[in-house]
C-alpha cells in the first residue's frame, strides 16, 4: 500500500488536536455560548437604548468588532447588503406611510412626515442591530464549534448531527440538482419558455434528487450505526474548545449588565 507515493504524516496537523482549537483571534476564540450571550445582550441593549443614536451605535459596534476579529471582509459586505435591502425597505415604507403632523412634502397619495422619518429610522436601526447580532455571531462562530459547545452543555449528539448533516445535505443535494437539471435539459425537458412550461419542469428536477437522497437514508443509518452512533456511552471529543477564562466571564457579565441597565433606563428614564 502507498508504495507509489509515500506521503509524510502531517504531525503539526495531528498535534493541533492535542490543544484547544484556536482561530488565533481573541474574539473568535470566545466560547460560542459566551459569545451568544454577548450578542443577545447587545440586541437587548439596542432595543432598549433611545433611538436612533442607541441602535445606530450598536450597529457601528458590530462593524468595529468585525474589523477587530479580522472578519471585516466577509461580514461587512453581508451586513451592508442587509442595510441596503431590508433596512432601506423598512425605512422608506415607514417614512412614506406613517402619519404625522409635520408634513415635509407630498407626492400624490404619499405624504412624508418628520415623525415617519424618525420612526422609520428608529425601527429600521433596531431591526438592523438585531440582524447584526445574528449575522455577526455566525460570521464569528463556526457551526461545528457551536455544536461542540452545545454537546459539552449536554445537548445530545443526535440533535447536533441533524444540524451539521443538514448543511452537508444542502451542499450534496444542490450538486445533484445541477446534475439532474443538465440531464433533464438534454432529455428535452424545457426549462425556458412560458410559465406553465417552466412550472412543469420543476417536478422532474426535484423528485429524482429527493428520492435518491431518501433511498440512501437506510444505508446512512446503518453506516452511522456501524460507527457506534447509537452507543449509549458518554461520547468523547477529538476537538476541544478553549476553557472559559475568568476574563471572558467578566466580559460576558459586563455586557449582560449593560443590557440590564439599558432596560432599567428604558423603563424609568428615557421612555
Amino acid at each position, binding site marked *: *500500500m*502507498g508504495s507509489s*507515493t*509515500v*506521503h*509524510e*504524516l*502531517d504531525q503539526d*496537523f*495531528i498535534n493541533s*488536536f*492535542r490543544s484547544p482549537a484556536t482561530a488565533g483571534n481573541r474574539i473568535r476564540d470566545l466560547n460560542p455560548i459566551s459569545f451568544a450571550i454577548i450578542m443577545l445582550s447587545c440586541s437587548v441593549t439596542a432595543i432598549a437604548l433611545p433611538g436612533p443614536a442607541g441602535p445606530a451605535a450598536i450597529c457601528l459596534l458590530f462593524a468595529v468588532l468585525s474589523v477587530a476579529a479580522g472578519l471585516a471582509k466577509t461580514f461587512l459586505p453581508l451586513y451592508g447588503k442587509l442595510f441596503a435591502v431590508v433596512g432601506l425597505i423598512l425605512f422608506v415604507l415607514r417614512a412614506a406611510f406613517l402619519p404625522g403632523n409635520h408634513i415635509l412634502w407630498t407626492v400624490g397619495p404619499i405624504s412624508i412626515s418628520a415623525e415617519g422619518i424618525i420612526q422609520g429610522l428608529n425601527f429600521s436601526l433596531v431591526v438592523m442591530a438585531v440582524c447584526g447580532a445574528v449575522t455577526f455571531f455566525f460570521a464569528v462562530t463556526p457551526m*461545528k464549534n457551536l455544536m461542540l459547545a452545545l454537546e459539552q452543555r449536554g445537548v445530545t*449528539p443526535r440533535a*447536533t*448531527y441533524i444540524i*451539521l*448533516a443538514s448543511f*452537508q*445535505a444542502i*451542499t*450534496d443535494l444542490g450538486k445533484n440538482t445541477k446534475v439532474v437539471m443538465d440531464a433533464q435539459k438534454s432529455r428535452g425537458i424545457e426549462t425556458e419558455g412560458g410559465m406553465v412550461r417552466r412550472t412543469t419542469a420543476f417536478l422532474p428536477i426535484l423528485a429524482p434528487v429527493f428520492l435518491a437522497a431518501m433511498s*440512501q437514508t437506510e*444505508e*446512512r*443509518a*446503518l*453506516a*452511522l*450505526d*456501524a*460507527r*457506534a*452512533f*447509537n*452507543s*449509549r*456511552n*458518554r*461520547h*468523547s*471529543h*477529538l*476537538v*476541544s474548545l478553549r476553557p472559559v477564562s475568568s476574563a471572558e466571564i467578566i466580559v460576558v457579565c459586563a455586557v449582560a449588565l449593560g443590557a440590564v441597565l439599558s432596560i432599567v433606563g428604558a423603563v424609568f428614564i428615557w421612555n
Partner: protein
Amino acid sequence: MELVSLRNVGFTYAYGDKPALTDISLTIEPGLLYGVVGLNASGKSTLCSVIRGIIPHFHHGELTGEVRIMGKDLLDWDPAELSKSIGYVFQNPFTQISGVKETVFEEIALGLENLGIEREEMIERVTVVVRELGLEALIRKNPNELSGGQRQKVAFASIIAMDADFIIIDEPTSQLDPDASEAVFGIIRQLKERGKSIILVEHKIDLMAEYADRIIVMKGGQVVMEGPARDVLVSDGLGDAGVPYPEVTELAFALARAGKPLSSVPITRAEAAQLVSDRIKEAPHAHSAL
C-alpha cells in the same frame, strides 16, 4: 467457540412476497475469511444483515430459526453493543461518510468519539490506521469532497480504528475502479493477516480465490454450499449457482475437456503458473504439450 451459528434460519422482509432466506444452517469460525458468492438477490446481503443483527433490529420482517452470535442469542443482544462488536463496511462509498466532519482525520475518529475513547488514545489509534492504510495525504482533506475510492478507504479506516475482531464487508469494490479495488483488497489482506474474522461478499471471484479461506455459495435465499475455498471453487455446485469460476480454474477445465488435464485444478494465478510450468518441464516435447 464458534463466532456465529445459524440453525434453520429463514427471513421474510416485511411486505416481501417471498422469503429472502430459507432454512440456512451455517457455522462461522473465528480467524477465517469467509467469502460469500451468488447471483444478485440470492440473499447475500440479507445473510450479512442477519449475522450483523441488522435483521431483526433494523429491517423488520419475520425471522425464524436460531441465530447465535458469540454464543449469545441474537434476540438477546443489545443492538448498540452488537454494532461495537461487529464492524461493517458497505458497498456505497458515498453513504458511509458521516457528512458532519470537515477533515478525514476527524471523520476516522468519529466512531471512537461515539465509543467515548480518551483524546490521546483516539489520536494514537487514528494515526496508526492512517499509516497502515496509507492515508497520510488525505488527513486534512474534506471527506465530503473525496473520490469514491478514497471514501471507501476512509470508510475502512473508520471501522478498523474501532478495532472490532469481526468485520463484515459487503461488496466493497462494486462501485470502484480497478486501482481502487486493488487498494481495498490490500486492506482486506492486512486485516486477514492480523487474524480478524471476516465475512466478505464480493463478485470478483479471482480475488476471492486469492483471499478466502472458506466460501459460502448462495442461490435463491439458500446456502447451497459451504466449504474450504479450494474445494468449493472447483466444484460443480459453484457453476450450478450461476457463479463464474476463477479464470485459471476455467482454463484447467478447458484443458481437461481437451483430454490434457493438469495434475490438479488451480484456483489462483500463482498455482496455475506453477502447474503450467511443471507441465512444460516434464513434457518430453515442450512445444506440443500445451
